[in-house]
């Protein structure tokens, strides 16, 4: 069957509705609806714009929040890490001078930029959203076209409210089937990366579709889209539906009243048309996915928790073989061994991947009434101030504290390595973050990526454990 000419993908629709002009060399000038800034470079870039005598084109469309460099110690102040005092001061002063909304520490807007965007209703379907961070693809879970940009592009967005972009190809990943008990969105996306590889999405805008996606909550969709960059794709999106609209209704920056109804009517036109063509399609059988845990130093180095660590000797590709050998040496693991039972020193629950209220609730259900193993240091770092307060209203902080966890303030913490929260050399963590790269959580730190319930199970057992057996 030939698709009707007007059949378009979600991505195509959002892209086309933002083209201001077509430039030479296949580059489009795209309008940007939301620009999010974080603390690492915001102050310096605002200063660069001011130095050239420019002003922000649409300051009302830019929002700033400190997250990367901030300490997460419960008694933190703006100056509690060596970098953060200057970074936060410059960002706040620059934002005030430019009329940019700045969500300060200890207010209900502060948090990891990719957590607060959806939480505040800033991130909405059909928007273009950019931020100087590669995990900006997270907001695609709201049905937005959202991607990370570099410092020069941040200046361009501030000054013009546009970006020069080359249109990527399209890819659809169909996640079909029913999720087994104990299996989470994190496991689904890790298994997907394991099956198709960290380079599969390069140059593509991904749309996740299928029955498993339709059944997901917004938090779960955000987790899936968050890891798009670990598939090599700058952009990952999920079509907006009633779940999305219900999530947005009543949020602080969501449209209100009649305007909300008008927006919903527009949003309903965004999903991919039947018969629309993608450049590449993959289908993943969700029924067969078990809880995942990584064994190596790339997110694609992932197996089911009841699986065995792969043996490089069986790998035919010599380059892949030596990468596997190097990963196992770094991780201190033996080929062929079971991953379950590997002793751990640290457990970290948080980050823009898995630091949302539903993640904290799920981990709390595993932890409730139990104790962290004596050999383990375990942290919960809520993804935002609002998440933290909501969790505390439910008494979840008590659940974790009683079990022996530390309950901390929101920020990127152990996922960013730029705020003092790191793991000692040679120590092993189970972490709900997104990157198990060499040195990501500190020099020579060994990271196993997993879901919040798997991280909670590891904290209790003192070793990598199957969350399904604890329930």
């Amino acid at each position: 069957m030939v698709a009707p000419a007007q059949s378009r993908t979600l991505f195509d629709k959002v892209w086309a509705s933002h083209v201001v002009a077509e430039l030479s060399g296949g580059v489009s000038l795209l309008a940007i609806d939301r620009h999010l800034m974080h603390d690492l470079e915001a102050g310096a870039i605002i200063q660069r714009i001011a130095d050239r005598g420019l002003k922000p084109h649409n300051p009302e469309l830019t929002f700033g929040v400190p997250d990367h460099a901030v300490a997460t110690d419960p008694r933190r102040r703006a100056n509690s890490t060596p970098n953060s005092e200057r970074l936060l001061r410059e960002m706040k002063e620059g934002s005030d001078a430019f009329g940019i909304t700045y969500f300060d520490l200890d207010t209900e807007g502060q948090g990891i930029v990719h957590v607060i965007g959806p939480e505040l209703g800033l991130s909405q379907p059909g928007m273009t959203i950019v931020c100087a961070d590669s995990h900006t693809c997270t907001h695609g879970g709201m049905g937005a076209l959202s991607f990370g940009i570099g410092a020069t592009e941040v200046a361009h967005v501030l000054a013009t409210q546009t970006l020069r972009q080359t249109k990527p190809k399209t890819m659809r990943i169909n996640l079909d089937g029913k999720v087994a008990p104990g299996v989470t969105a994190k496991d689904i996306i890790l298994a997907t990366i394991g099956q198709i590889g960290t380079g599969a999405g390069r140059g593509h805008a991904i749309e996740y579709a299928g029955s498993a996606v339709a059944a997901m909550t917004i938090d779960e969709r955000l987790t899936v889209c968050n890891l798009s960059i670990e598939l090599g794709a700058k952009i990952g999106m999920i079509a907006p539906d009633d779940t999305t609209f219900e999530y947005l209704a009543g949020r602080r920056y969501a449209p209100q009243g009649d305007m909300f109804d008008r927006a919903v009517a527009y949003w309903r036109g965004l999903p991919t048309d039947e018969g629309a063509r993608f450049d590449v399609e993959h289908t993943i059988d969700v029924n067969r996915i078990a809880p995942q845990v990584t064994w190596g130093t790339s997110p694609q180095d992932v197996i089911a928790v009841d699986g065995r660590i792969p043996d490089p000797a069986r790998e035919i590709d010599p380059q892949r073989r030596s990468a596997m050998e190097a990963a196992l040496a770094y991780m201190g693991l033996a080929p062929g061994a079971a991953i379950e039972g590997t002793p751990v020193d640290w457990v970290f629950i948080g980050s823009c991947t898995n630091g949302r209220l539903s993640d904290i609730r799920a981990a709390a259900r595993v932890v409730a009434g139990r104790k962290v193993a004596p050999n383990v240091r375990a942290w919960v770092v809520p993804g935002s101030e609002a998440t933290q307060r909501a969790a505390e209203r439910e008494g979840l902080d008590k659940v974790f504290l009683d079990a022996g966890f530390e309950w901390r303030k929101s920020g990127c913490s152990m996922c960013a390595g730029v705020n003092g929260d790191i793991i000692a050399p040679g120590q092993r963590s189970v972490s709900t973050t997104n990157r198990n790269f060499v040195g990501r959580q500190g020099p020579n730190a060994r990271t196993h990526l997993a879901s919040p319930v798997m991280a909670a199970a590891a904290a209790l057992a003192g070793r990598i454990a199957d969350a399904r057996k604890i329930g």
Partner: protein
Amino acid sequence: MRARSGDTMEKFTQLGAIGAPLMKPNIDTDAIIPVKRLIGYQRHELGAFALEPYRFRADGSENPDFVLNRSRHRAAKILVTAENFGCGSSRESAVWALMAYGFRCIIGPGFGDIFTNNAFQNGLLLIRLPRDVVDPIADELASAPSPAMGVDLEACTITTPAGRKVAFEIDAERRQALLEGRDEIAMTLLRDADITAFQQRDRAARPWIYETTPRLSPAA
């Protein structure tokens, strides 16, 4: 009339300058500016460390064999290179370091993608020519009585040290930006009428995008 953009980029029209041949392929941005130099130095100070691993020996003394340390090429503003110059890590400071050293133009068979964008953003002209056209220019820089050469961006020609004219091609918008001393921000601001018109149309179609006053009470 002065553009509203400020002037962050020096114009590039014609350049007569010393050239230096550096015919080693795959010189990456780590070699152009080592990561340890990115902390504690201003942009304009990075010239002292441009190509540091080649220019200096482990003890910090100059490597007398390196082309930029020979009196003939020390004042070079034009670099002639081999394939894939500027590959590797995406750091914009690689371009800043080369420009702070004094380079305004690099001629070679190909450049790293991100490096290319960063170069044109900062007013560093990259000229792509096939290797068999680049090699004779490099040879002339080494052998001609004077290593002086010319680059004319208006005419899109290079004058080699031996006095030959070599034509080159370049993206039209990038050429215009360099001739006028405008970076992408300045080029885009020339289209501000388009941006404003887009926003007016879009505001009618999607008014909620532009209404960003929050509700009074924070949502839970």
